């Protein structure tokens, strides 16, 4: 149940899989994303409401053939240059887009968790998005009103980061919870990385508990949400997001950065050491 991240990724994620890494600003599973890069996963369909730095990295390293998303940017900073390069120039490979609204993505995850084939919402009305995405119509049998239907997300693998697991692999996260519960419950297989393994989970305000039997593998990855944050453990590395902008603008700079900090590091500990070394040198 509790395994090294490397083993979890190699056993549970296959080339061509539909993979969702979720975490809404908080608890973004970056270390797991880096492990996908290290293991050279390719042809992935990546789902995520808010693709940010970690998806920029996965896309720039050519891991993805398709992106399903609702907002793709560097929050508070600007563009994701690797995402843009893939969409605008097909580099390093063309990237198919399936674009939704936040409300649609959230409804699609909730439908997946509930084992329904679609989610219903008042949305996708007017504008150009409906003609560019997968959306259908259902009609209320009582009122005759037409509503939008989005196809449920049912990822092959759902990956999230949480604060704690106990030794049996029961997981608790707290604070802003995003769509993480839905991501795990909607997925065929799931990986949860955690900051800490504890003897017993203490119930918390705004706590979300996922019993071990809903999860395929738990990996202990301290700092695994960097550069996002883990409430109670560490703050958001706002400077990293700002620094990502120049790194990611240039293909060569980006590739060198990824080689140095991801490909040439074995795990999150080495990744952190590598970033610290660079900061000291600068």
């Amino acid at each position, binding site marked *: 149940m509790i395994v090294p991240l490397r083993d979890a990724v190699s056993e549970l994620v296959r080339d061509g899989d539909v993979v969702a890494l979720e975490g809404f600003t908080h608890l973004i599973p970056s270390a797991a994303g880096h492990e996908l890069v290290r293991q050279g996963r390719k042809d992935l369909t990546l789902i995520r409401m808010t693709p940010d730095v970690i998806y920029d990295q996965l896309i720039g390293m050519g891991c993805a053939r398709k992106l399903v998303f609702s907002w793709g940017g560097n929050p508070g900073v600007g563009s994701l240059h690797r995402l843009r390069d893939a969409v605008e120039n097909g580099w390093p490979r063309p990237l198919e887009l399936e*674009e939704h609204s936040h409300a649609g993505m959230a409804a699609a995850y909730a439908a997946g968790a509930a084992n329904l084939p679609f989610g219903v919402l008042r949305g996708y009305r007017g504008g150009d998005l409906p003609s560019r995405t997968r959306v259908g119509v259902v009609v209320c049998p009582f009122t005759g009103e037409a509503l939008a239907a989005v196809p449920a997300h049912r990822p092959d693998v759902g990956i999230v980061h949480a604060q704690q697991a106990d030794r049996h692999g029961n997981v608790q996260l707290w604070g802003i919870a995003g769509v993480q519960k839905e991501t795990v419950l909607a997925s065929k297989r799931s990986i949860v990385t955690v900051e800490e393994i504890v003897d017993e989970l203490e119930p918390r305000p705004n706590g979300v508990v996922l019993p071990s039997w809903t999860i395929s593998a738990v990996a202990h990855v301290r700092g695994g949400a960097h550069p996002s944050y883990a409430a109670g453990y560490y703050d958001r590395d706002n400077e990293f997001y700002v620094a990502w902008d120049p790194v990611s603008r240039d293909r060569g700079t980006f590739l060198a950065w990824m080689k140095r900090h991801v490909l040439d590091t074995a795990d999150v500990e080495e990744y952190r050491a590598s970033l610290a070394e660079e900061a000291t040198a600068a």
Partner: protein
Amino acid sequence: MTTNGDRPYTADEMMAVEAARRLDDTTVCFVGIGLPSLAANLARRTHAPGCTLIYESGTIGAKPVRLPLSIGDGELAETADAVVSVPEMFAYWLQGRRIDVGFLGAAQIDRYGNLNSTVIGDYEHPTVRLPGGGGAPEIALGVDDVFVMLRQSPRTFVEQLDFTTSLGDNVRVVVTDLGILEPRHGELTLVAVHPGSTVEQARAATGWDLQVADEMRETVPPTDEELAALRALETKGRS
């Protein structure tokens, strides 16, 4: 840089102040990062302490001391009355029509208040791929009053959107760096200019033939109190 007599202020500050003035003590508003967050927090710290701030990350009634840098900052959750999941936020709260005001920005706006935050150029082969709609399509139709905050230029205020991300049906005001636009007779019309700006500047910065209201107002510049509250927020945000 303009001054209110005593103090100089920036165009961003003028925009935040004008948006804040439109919120009252009972307003429930859906806030994005940047200027909207600055405006809503300013309102809460001046004339509208009871104003409820909702961030799409699921924080309801957030009362940040520092200005958040992301919509999911830890402080938003720590100071919130309630934290809910993202599916609940969009289903029970936004779609549930519990939110009065929603702020939106965009890369382009047309005379009807329709917004584009998706692409510049063709969708399949864009010149610039923008971040996308995020919460905007449903915010635009799910709140009573949409406030748009957007710097005015012929590149942003366009005759024809490259892509319609969200509809302008509920846009009640557009606060720009030059003035205030409101819908009149079915299209956005200039109703006020900020001190130091002119109608001519606003028309020149608009890609369509901008209509001007018969009775033009000049915006009241930020008061000392507003500027002090604003800068306290901004300073803390940078620390």
